[in-house]
């Protein structure tokens, strides 16, 4: 398995997000293998939560489908453990703090490492609140991935960069996940500002749903995160593997093309 930072070496990284268990865990396992085969560099795996306050409607509904399908954090970790030798791209768990509290923070860190997880993102756990979990993860060799937003002041940005590991998740705009409707301005100025504080790879996400937007994002950042757009595309396919493959592959290839295969 590759380390998280090596996923960004020598090329712009394509990062995808899918909600685990949407609509069932077997389908998620199938999709993760497919995404890996299609050259996705980092696989974000969402832990469904009843109250995902940082997510827009697409991921909210995906979470609801996953919960209706019986997904739990325990089962998700079990699935990832079973897959650990079948996938080469590093996996990152993304979920909300109450899921981790219910599971137990120590046990979560240990079991995530045991399931081959390379990093964890908790969108409702800013660094000044997450020191305990960050150190438990660090002890297990799992990166605690932090987020930066366009309104993060310089002083706080320095604090985030001092503590960040793996890569930095740069939120493209104020808002929740998914399409914003507003055209994305060039992210170059934003990314340059962050880059002056850190040498970690910078992945740009939120609202990057088309190859055009991905290309624009990849011009400035080291990686591009695509979530809601992929989920929306696959949702009508249900659990039909052939349909999933036929929808996913062309989209992933166009994203791959847009993001570029090599660092300029």
């Amino acid at each position: 398995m590759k380390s998280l930072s090596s996923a960004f070496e020598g090329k712009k990284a394509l990062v995808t997000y899918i909600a685990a268990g949407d609509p069932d865990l077997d389908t998620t396992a199938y999709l993760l293998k497919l995404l890996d085969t299609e050259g996705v560099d980092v696989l974000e795996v969402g832990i469904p939560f009843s109250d995902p306050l940082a997510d827009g409607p697409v991921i909210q509904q995906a979470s609801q489908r996953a919960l209706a399908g019986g997904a739990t954090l325990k089962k998700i970790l079990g699935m990832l453990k079973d897959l650990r030798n079948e996938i080469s791209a590093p996996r990152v768990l993304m979920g909300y703090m109450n899921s981790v509290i219910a599971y137990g923070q120590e046990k979560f860190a240990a079991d995530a490492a045991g399931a081959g997880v390379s990093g964890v993102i908790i969108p409702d756990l800013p660094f000044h609140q997450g020191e305990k979990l960050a150190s438990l993860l660090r002890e297990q060799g799992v990166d605690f991935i932090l987020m930066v937003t366009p309104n993060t002041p310089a002083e706080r940005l320095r604090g985030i960069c001092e503590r960040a590991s793996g890569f930095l998740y740069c939120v493209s705009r104020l808002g929740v996940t998914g399409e914003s409707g507003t055209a994305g301005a060039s992210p170059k100025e934003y990314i340059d500002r962050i880059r002056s504080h850190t040498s970690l790879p910078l992945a740009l996400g939120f609202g990057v749903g088309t190859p055009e937007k991905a290309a624009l994002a990849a011009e400035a950042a080291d990686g591009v995160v695509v979530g809601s757009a992929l989920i929306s595309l696959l949702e009508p396919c249900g659990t039909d593997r052939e349909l999933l493959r036929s929808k996913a592959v062309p989209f992933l290839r166009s994203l791959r093309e847009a993001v570029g295969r090599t660092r300029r």
Partner: protein
Amino acid sequence: MKTSMYFGPFGGQYVPETLVPALDELEKAYLASLEDPSFSAEMAPLLRDYVGRPSPLYFAPRITESLGGAKVYLKREDLNHTGAHKINNALGQVLLARRMGKRRIIAETGAGMHGVATATAAALFGLECVVYMGEEDVHRQAANVARMDLLGAKVVSVMSGTRTLKDAVNEAIRDWVTTVEDSFYVIGSVMGPHPYPLMVRDFQKIIGEEAKAQILEKEGRLPDQVVACVGGGSNAMGIFHAFVEHPEVALVGVEAAGRGVETGLHAATISAGKPGVLHGSYSYVLYDGDGQIQPAHSISAGLDYPGVGPEHSHLAETGRASYVSATDDEAVEAFRRTCRLEGIIPALESSHALAHVYRSAGSLPKDTIVLVNLSGRGDKDMDTILSLQSKEEQS
């Protein structure tokens, strides 16, 4: 952070990174307002002439007589403008928003009382106001929806999740994450990320401060017991705060037991929940083994919330306050009894506090003084009560 974010282990800021600068800015503005005499100079006449403060402390002779035990006093927050204690906090936060140069106000509401209070304050200062309300609550509190509309607020019916208060909070937070630069989120209870639990309590503590002075004047001593209903817990923190430093005064919070805590259909967060994270703070929460938030149930929309303010969790863990619960049936019985005995129609929320008094104060010695926060009036609950009555008549 200049002030502590925590009450014991509870509280904190479990929020998306986007909101961290906004919470810093809010804390700064809030602390500055405490030091700034012009803020209280603006607030005090509003509370007096617009809200109608101080609210009376009323000795309830017929409740007292019917119980044959403790003397019962009611703190009449139901007499405030807009009909509940919510206006104290809404005015404070909207004043703060105006000072911070925010032109747009966001709020969540369950029963609609906080929504009405916020829409009122926004109208008073000519600010745009958007209120998020679960679709289910929009139906059961139609009169309050109409009031907000009249006051110029836009009510957004929330269709996500369980379509109740917790989902309205999620949606308000999602709005705020998107509009953080020009919007101010007026949270209606002592919940949410720091500094809200502290700030809302401070805007509500006037209830207890007044009650303390009033009872000293009437009885020459402090009460033995202070009782208030607890959903998020703002009216309870408001009346408790002035008495926390007097250990001889028992503080009792009454949660909504819905159809009974044992049925799972309840909102008794401290009695039956465990510590977790909901809506930005670490506190007692109702959730299952996988961490999924459990829908709450209560006949009163204002208590129908699966979380509770972090300071209540702290008061519960340290034993300074005790938390009990009352069922839907007990609350309705207390509602009716209060109407008949005192000519006061209490809110169904406040009726939970009264229910605890009715079942416990009769056995207390006659010189015991019980102070109840009558946090709101029951006009808004007429539909609920009428539909109950028609069901009873049919059966």
